[in-house]
């Protein structure tokens, strides 16, 4: 049908030129990492033990030889023996990893490819998840200061919020991973969200600050609108701008 012809022209034109398709494929390979250059009976016995425990998992499994720990294991003959022995065990070695120049040459003689990328990605992801869990389990620590913060002093709340009850002098610095609350005049510098938390805020009962910063975006007293001076205010980020607003 003519209508179909016009519709499919693009697709068929491509198909007519090339009799194949190229597709990216991801699959899982097993990596075997010898830790000793001694390739004797005990090595293969230990390997056999391992294979017996989960025979299905290893049957005809594509396998990469990771040679990082055995730079001395080179020479075509040595590698050939290794590959032969693995094939006898129904494994399918097809490549080498972390191989030295000599090992790469020996491997290509045997038809093994050299794989330069590839990491133990699943393992890493697992670790990262664990780390996040650990952080969530401990509550964010709030630091409370009940003395005046004097010129030249720096108070850092590395993990959570910082609360100061008293004045913060000009020349003093407050730094917090989370929010900063000042119950008193804030005349020094206040840097909230020091680790990049853009939802952090700065609150003070009297704004005379030299500098306000949230997640690295800052304003100095010169660029802080004078109408907020001496007032009860909060500062926060909105559309990547540092906004100041009076509190009722």
């Amino acid at each position, binding site marked *: 049908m003519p209508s179909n012809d016009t519709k499919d022209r693009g697709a068929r034109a491509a198909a007519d030129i090339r009799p194949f398709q190229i597709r990216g494929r991801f699959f899982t390979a097993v990596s075997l990492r010898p830790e000793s250059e001694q390739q004797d009976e005990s090595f293969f016995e230990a390997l056999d033990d391992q294979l017996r425990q989960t025979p299905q998992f290893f049957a005809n499994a594509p396998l990469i030889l990771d040679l990082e720990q055995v730079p001395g294991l080179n020479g075509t003959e040595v590698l050939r023996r290794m590959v032969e022995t693995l094939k006898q065990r129904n494994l399918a070695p097809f490549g080498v990893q972390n191989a030295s120049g000599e090992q790469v040459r020996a491997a290509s003689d045997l038809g093994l490819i050299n794989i330069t990328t590839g990491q133990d990605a699943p393992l890493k992801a697992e670790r990262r998840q664990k780390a996040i869990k650990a952080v969530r389990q401990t509550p964010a620590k709030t630091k409370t200061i009940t003395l005046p913060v004097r*010129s030249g002093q720096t108070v850092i709340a590395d993990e959570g919020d910082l609360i100061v009850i008293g004045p913060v*002098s000009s020349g003093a610095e407050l730094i917090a991973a989370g929010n900063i609350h000042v119950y008193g005049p804030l005349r020094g510098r206040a840097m909230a969200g020091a680790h990049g938390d853009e939802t952090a805020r700065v609150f003070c009962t009297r704004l005379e600050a030299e500098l306000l910063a949230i997640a690295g975006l800052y304003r100095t007293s010169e660029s802080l609108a004078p109408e907020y001076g001496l007032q009860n205010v909060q500062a926060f980020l909105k559309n990547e701008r540092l906004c100041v607003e009076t509190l009722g």
Partner: protein
Amino acid sequence: MSKIIVVTSGKGGVGKTTTSAAISAGLAKRGHKTVVIDFDVGLRNLDMIMGCERRVVFDFINVIQGDAKLKQALIRDKRLDNLAVLPTSQTRDKDALTQEGVEAVLNELKEEFDYIICDSPAGIERGALMAMYYADEAIVVTNPEVSSVRDSDRVLGLLQSKTHRAEEEGAEPIKAQVLITRHDQARIDKGEMMTVEDVLEILAVPLLGIIPESPAVLRASNMGVPVVLDDPSAAASAYEDAVARLVGEQVEMKIGGERRPGLISRLFGLTA
């Protein structure tokens, strides 16, 4: 129980040495055994203000280094027999002050004296830190102007963190009070200087006294007489009030030269 009081400020030229001389003479005048120590090693001034520079043989550094006995270095005041001066060295520098040496001298002085006044050098380096380290109380001298107040604020921070009382577990923090010197009501009225309220709001510590700007202070210094031992003046009476407050008396705070400095000064002179 003797008390160690440091007179400090951060900024130079605000009147630390004048205040040390006046406060120590004022305490001695009230009958307290008092010694005043010059911590400004290398820039020996206190002995001149106290009028004993020609009697200096041994000094504080000689005592610290064991070259002289404390008794040899102490200079007894000729006007008040319960007042002594421990002068410092003009030839050495602040590195000659060691923490152990200072502690040993202070401990020996505690056996004889009720009040030990430490005249701190300007700055926040070794000399100033050594002067404040063993203090029980502090007099922070401030002029009513922004840079002096900011430096005083810095020093208050050091008093609350870098001293023996701050470092020792469970010790009472140093009792710090501010003494405003060179107060000039006329210039404050013109807006050229900060008001007392502004200063106290920033420093947030109790006020020990307000010393008016007075030609009597410079004259007394040049003559080597602590201002409280000189002829009556507004500054002298303000220092005497400050001394009274220092020993725990309730004295009403007067601001010198409220309307006509001349008249008020004369009135203060009469009541002193």
